[in-house]
């Protein structure tokens, strides 16, 4: 089986259909290691890719005013147990454009592999980008994944991100995102992770609300079991009049797992406001007993509560 076929085969693990790569209306990039295996552009999308020994370097431009109806798929991965993949990517969404990007990071056989992503995203004035990132790291826990990104959201622009890692092992995950939001811009960052065994998670998301009436939400849901560990930091700074931010972190801890949540909120303007809530603990007793009072066995009740939180 070719590397392309191996990666396509596991697309359903992140909720994507393999047939999307055959659809001529859908733009895509598929890369194994630092090699591009397949790519397609669609009207309004320009892609420049350069394979180097150290990294795959890419630039994606979405033209001003372009309304790309179908999600653009970016599929990165390794089809071998070991290896290194480094991606450097600039994504520029021009003024008034709208696009959705589905990023699939697939490492189905990893036993000692590494994936590093260095991304810079610019969302132009009035533009909108929805960035959905689905990861599958295989069952072995041998993956080290370090996605780092800086995202700049222009005046009146909107950015929605949704990171999920719900199947298989996490391995070692170190996410570091910095988001800057200009006047009347909006950033909503959501992350959902289910960690097991000896998985280690470091998740740091920082939002700087620079512009007046800019808004943000950081929402994190992590479920840990066995000996998994998670350190979650959600930072929001508000620097301008009318800026509003909220940090919402919930972690459910089972077995010997350990979790920490650090919400950091800073306000530098008297008419700005940032709120936060964080909850760490076992499954809520009242939720559990309510479901049991409807006839669910304890393990069924826990499964429903956990799956609900990770939706």
């Amino acid at each position, binding site marked *: 089986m070719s590397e392309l076929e191996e990666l396509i085969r596991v697309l359903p693990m992140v909720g994507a259909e393999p047939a999307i790569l055959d659809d001529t209306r859908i733009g895509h990039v598929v890369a194994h290691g630092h090699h591009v295996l397949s790519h397609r552009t669609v009207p309004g999308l320009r892609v420049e890719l350069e394979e180097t020994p150290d990294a795959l370097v890419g630039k994606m431009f979405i033209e001003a005013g372009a309304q790309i109806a179908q999600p653009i798929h970016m599929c990165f991965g390794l089809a071998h147990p070991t290896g290194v993949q480094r991606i450097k990517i600039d994504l520029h969404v021009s003024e008034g454009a709208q696009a959705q990007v589905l990023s699939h990071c697939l490492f189905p056989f990893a036993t000692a592999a590494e994936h590093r992503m260095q991304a810079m995203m610019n969302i132009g004035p009035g533009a909108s980008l929805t960035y959905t990132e689905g990861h599958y790291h295989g069952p072995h826990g041998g993956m080290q994944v370090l996605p780092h990104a800086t995202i700049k959201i222009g005046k009146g622009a909107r950015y929605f991100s949704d990171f999920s890692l719900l199947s298989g092992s996490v391995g070692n995950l170190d996410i570091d995102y910095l988001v800057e939001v200009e006047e009347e811009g909006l950033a909503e960052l959501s992350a959902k992770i289910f960690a097991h065994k000896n998985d280690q998670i470091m998740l740091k998301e920082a939002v700087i609300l620079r512009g007046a009436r800019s808004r943000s939400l950081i929402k994190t849901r992590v479920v840990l079991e066995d000996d998994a560990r998670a350190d979650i930091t959600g930072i929001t700074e508000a620097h301008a009049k009318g800026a509003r931010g909220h940090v919402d972190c919930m972690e459910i801890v089972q077995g010997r797992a350990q979790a920490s949540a650090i919400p950091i909120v800073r306000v530098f303007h008297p008419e700005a406001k940032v709120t936060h809530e964080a909850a760490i603990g076992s499954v809520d007793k*009242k939720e559990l*007993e*309510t479901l*049991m009072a*409807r*006839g669910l066995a*304890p393990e069924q009740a826990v499964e429903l509560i956990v799956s*609900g939180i990770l939706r």
Partner: protein
Amino acid sequence: MPIPLLDIRNLTFTADRQVILDRLDLAIQPAEIHALLGANGSGKTTLAYVLMGCEGYQSSAGDVLFDGTKLLPLKTHERAKLGLTLAWQEPARFEGVSVREYLSLGKPDRDPEPALRQVGLDPDRYLSRRVDKALSGGERHRIELASVLAMKPKLAILDEPAAGIDMLSINHIIAVIRTLKSYGGSVLLITHQEEVVLIADRASQLCGGRIIYSGTPHAVVDHFRGRTCVRCDGEVCGYVRA
């Protein structure tokens, strides 16, 4: 006398060395709506939790027979499988769980729409909503009742089912209670609202963890209002003759 569906004898529950339920006796017949009145702290909700087997609510003495089965050794979900359930006064919220799922717990083939309509909520608007913080208190209460209704239990314990419900919607709550009875089920109705109490077949007044008076709903409401409590002389429950 017919054999009671629920037969509580000498039930005692203590917490922090305080007796909360004190050798309580109560029987509920099949298809009976039984209202339970009592002041705050009289033990009504504790009785509900002990009957449902909630964590930390294990009785220290007494027996409870439910439909001929000894209830107290069973776990909560085992009691539910026998046909007993509880609607909490402050229902839990479930992130990510849809109303459709919540009304079909353990029975994915169950049609949730009739129960939702019965509580006055439009299935088209509510089935795909989440049972989470976005629901108002009144909406959440109604969905809780719908979930009990969908289960068609032999005995539903409803703890203040009309709390937070507007006056116009109380009729929906009353209709739900009557529907539960029409299925052949019984209801233990914990409430302070007179218009809800009066739909019961029988009622009991609880004070200091014991049933101090049982009778028709009217008689119990009158007792509740106008008589000195025979058990505590008004010192615990505050019911003193004017």
